[in-house]
């Protein structure tokens, strides 16, 4: 079981308190953009995923805790969390990720 640091509760809690919510930073196009999108573009938004083997940006939901969504960088080879950050914050840069590892 993973131990996950919730950036809102500011503590590490067991995985059973959380629900995984898929890849992070996939922005849903607004209504105008949607009306102009091709099937290929819609398919990319809907179905295509990075599925990285390595550092992966993903959403988690603390549904049995504070009930907040947040983002995380986790290494999918080792399952180790590098960092978690609040919803709305930008995707961390490579330098930020490297810094968080130390």
């Amino acid at each position: 079981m993973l131990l996950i640091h919730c950036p809102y509760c500011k503590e590490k809690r067991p995985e059973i308190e959380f629900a995984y919510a898929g890849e992070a930073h996939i922005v849903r196009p607004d209504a105008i953009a949607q009306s102009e999108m091709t099937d290929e573009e819609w398919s990319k938004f809907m179905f295509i995923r990075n599925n990285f083997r390595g550092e992966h940006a993903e959403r988690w939901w603390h549904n049995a805790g504070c009930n907040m969504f947040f983002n995380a960088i986790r290494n999918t080879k080792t399952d180790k969390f590098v960092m978690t950050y609040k919803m709305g914050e930008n995707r961390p840069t490579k330098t930020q990720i490297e810094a968080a590892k130390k």
Partner: protein
Amino acid sequence: MKFSAISLFANALSGHKKWPSQFPNKEPKKEYDVIIIGGGAHGLGAAYYLASKYGIKNVAVLEKGWIGGGNTGRNTTIIRSNYLFDESAALYDHAVDLWDGLSQELNYNVMFSKRGVLMLAHNVHDVQSFQRHVYSNRLNNVDNRWLTPEECKEFCPPLDISSSRRYPVMGGALQMRAGTARHDSVAWGYARAASKLGVDIIQNCEVTGIRRDAFGNVEGVETAKGYLKSKKVGVSAAGNTSVVMEMAGLRFPLESYPLQALVSEPIKPVFPCVVMSNAVHAYISQSDKGELVIGAGTDQYTSYSQRGALHLQEHNLMSICEIFPIFKRMRMLRSWGGVVDVTPDRSPIVGKTPVGGLYVNCGWGTGGFKATPGAANMLAYTIAHNEPHKINAPFNLDRFIGGRLIDEAAAAAVAH
């Protein structure tokens, strides 16, 4: 060397110490007609069918670890074809057709045992949806029939069908042609048979890049053992498909999850068939060694770590004890995790890719073992003809653009 009663007898006289190795460990040649990436049973099978059915013998199978060490060796060995939709029924039933007689064809005992798969219904919704499956299967000539609780009990004596149970058995759908096989034998059998036809099986040879020519078509692969030329490359890398495809500049509609299973200590034969329960959420069978083989759903997060969380195993075993209280005091022997590549519609992708000369067999998610011979044959056919067979044509990559999804998510035996 051919396996037979005579060879068994002769080798018994020498104390079984003189059996030759089953296939040579090859070093790669510089160029191949076809390269298959991934030495699981799907990839080895594709190489075997390319050589045996489609006449392409200059083939290499590249495996980054050892053959059959991925999902081929990390499943619960269940084989069935009682899928709801026409496309899936055709694909999975083609695989069951090939399972029949596979041992004879390969001259290698894959121990395919048609012991029957029973799917239990515990509520009115289950009854209705399984009966719908039974009728749909019959229209597709896939065997599947409805059993009353008493018939279920007769077929699988460890079942408790008393109505006082929390999840009473209200009936079940039984596919008699379904069953189990020995997973390692499938990989080894295909490897041995393919190798005999001239296929090179190269282990410890990770692919690190895919080279493309000026027109964008595949011209070879970079590996841990150097650059290998080939105009046709088939990818059969299961959970690592996204990683391999990225080397060709392609992104795929896949996510890789850990799927765990476990076995108990071996006991005397007590469990004659495979039982699945979607509502209570587990499935169970007994291997020929006597271990109870138990599985359920995937972990919630994507991962390539080949292990999952303990609380999923607890959940899994609670479900088994709920349906079969007689197993409450069994001890578990070992558990394992595989990395399964799941598509948005839970159906596989078998066919061509946007890159010329690059073919794919992926997205089998939690149910790839049962399809092994079928998937292998379809991949081989597609590579040989540069066109998909009519059975795998609907399972193309374009369905995610056109919207013609084959949404088998609800038809899976256990919800994932």
